């Protein structure tokens, strides 16, 4: 089986949540409002084993995929998307963007459906587009393999963070268990700092100085509509946390 694909630079995949590696989250902290996404993958799903390898097991039937994300509402375009729909940070763009339309979070043999454009996307999959995937193999897997390696290398950090939170926050564990049972699945968005604290050489002051203005700006750009309330709350929570940590003045004024 062959699949053809060529990007037409329509920019349609550059919207909303963008999974980031820990390293990309840190280097783009001045650009994206950050959060951590916890997603459940059930036993029996094709991505189950890989999810456990790169993430952690919640219980017998559920694996957790845990990833930093650029936390933007689905209707918001990437801040790095140019007016001509080209990426303005092509040279330094996240590994997730480089691998699109493939995903290193899934097995290489399980990528065929990712080459079917999502509704509204203008990807070229006609006969004039090159073959990019054949018999379960990506023909030029350079970016895919690079992303997979990044995910494998950070797995130990993700696992240490996840084990720490699951142990310390029983309500989180219970909520994830409930989400896992829903047919539509369930995902949870958490603050990113507890994860970053697990990173060796993490420079909190530097991170806060780069991330706080982005959170403030993202907050200001949210429309008043109730559908954005969760984003508002999460941005405010993130800001408050950074404020708390930035304080070095002693006592009261």
């Amino acid at each position, binding site marked *: 089986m062959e699949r053809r694909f060529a990007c037409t630079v329509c920019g349609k995949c550059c919207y909303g949540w963008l999974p980031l590696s820990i390293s990309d989250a840190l280097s783009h902290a001045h650009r994206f409002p950050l959060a951590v996404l916890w997603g459940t993958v059930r036993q029996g799903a094709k991505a189950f084993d890989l999810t456990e390898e790169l993430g952690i097991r919640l219980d017998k039937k559920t694996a957790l995929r845990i990833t930093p994300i650029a936390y933007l509402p689905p209707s918001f375009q990437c801040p790095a998307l140019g007016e001509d729909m080209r990426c303005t940070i092509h040279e330094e763009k996240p590994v997730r963007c480089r691998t699109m339309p493939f995903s290193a*979070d899934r097995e290489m043999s399980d990528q065929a459906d990712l080459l079917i454009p999502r509704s509204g996307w203008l990807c070229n999959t006609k006969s004039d587009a090159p073959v990019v995937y054949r018999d379960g193999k990506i023909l030029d897997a350079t970016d895919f393999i690079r992303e997979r390696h990044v995910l494998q290398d950070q797995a130990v950090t993700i696992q240490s963070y996840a084990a720490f939170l699951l142990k310390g*926050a029983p309500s*989180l564990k219970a909520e994830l268990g409930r989400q896992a049972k829903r047919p*539509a699945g369930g995902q949870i968005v958490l603050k990113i700092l507890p994860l970053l604290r697990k990173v060796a050489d993490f420079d909190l002051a530097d991170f806060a100085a780069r991330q706080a203005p982005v959170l403030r700006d993202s907050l200001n750009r949210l429309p008043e509509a109730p559908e954005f309330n969760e984003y508002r709350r999460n941005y405010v929570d993130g800001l*408050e946390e950074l*404020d708390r940590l*930035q304080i070095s003045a002693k006592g009261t*004024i």
Partner: protein
Amino acid sequence: MTLCLCHSGLEFDACCGRILSGAQAATPEALMRARVSAFIGGDMEFLERTLAPESKADFDRHAIEASMKGVEGLGFEVRGQEGGGEADQEGRLEYVARFKANGQPLAHHERAFFRRENGNWLYVDGEVNPKAPPRHVEKVGRNDPCSCGSGKKYKKCCGA
């Protein structure tokens, strides 16, 4: 015209300047803003005089004077308030005051408590870096994109 040190955007004389020179602060917020302006401007007398009597013993003029050296105000943001109205004798104000000290940005986040005496609002005490109630489970959407970043719905992607 000189803009007020509390970054209200108002003229100093129409904002904290009035209160620093003796006018009554109408609300805890007005008092707190004036205290921040006094801190930036080095008005120790004002800081001491607007403290509740029981808090004056803790007032360490030298420590404050040392900590305000080279401080520049960057903003004052109200996060929440209770009471503090015309009919109230007490009020709470949660705020974040932002400064730059020795080139480093810093934020002072406090939930402060105020009491009215003889018509004047006084600062009683405050909790610095008040803890927000734990809240971390936020978002569960029916049609959220899958966590693998494919752009597909979870139920048609890794949830299939």
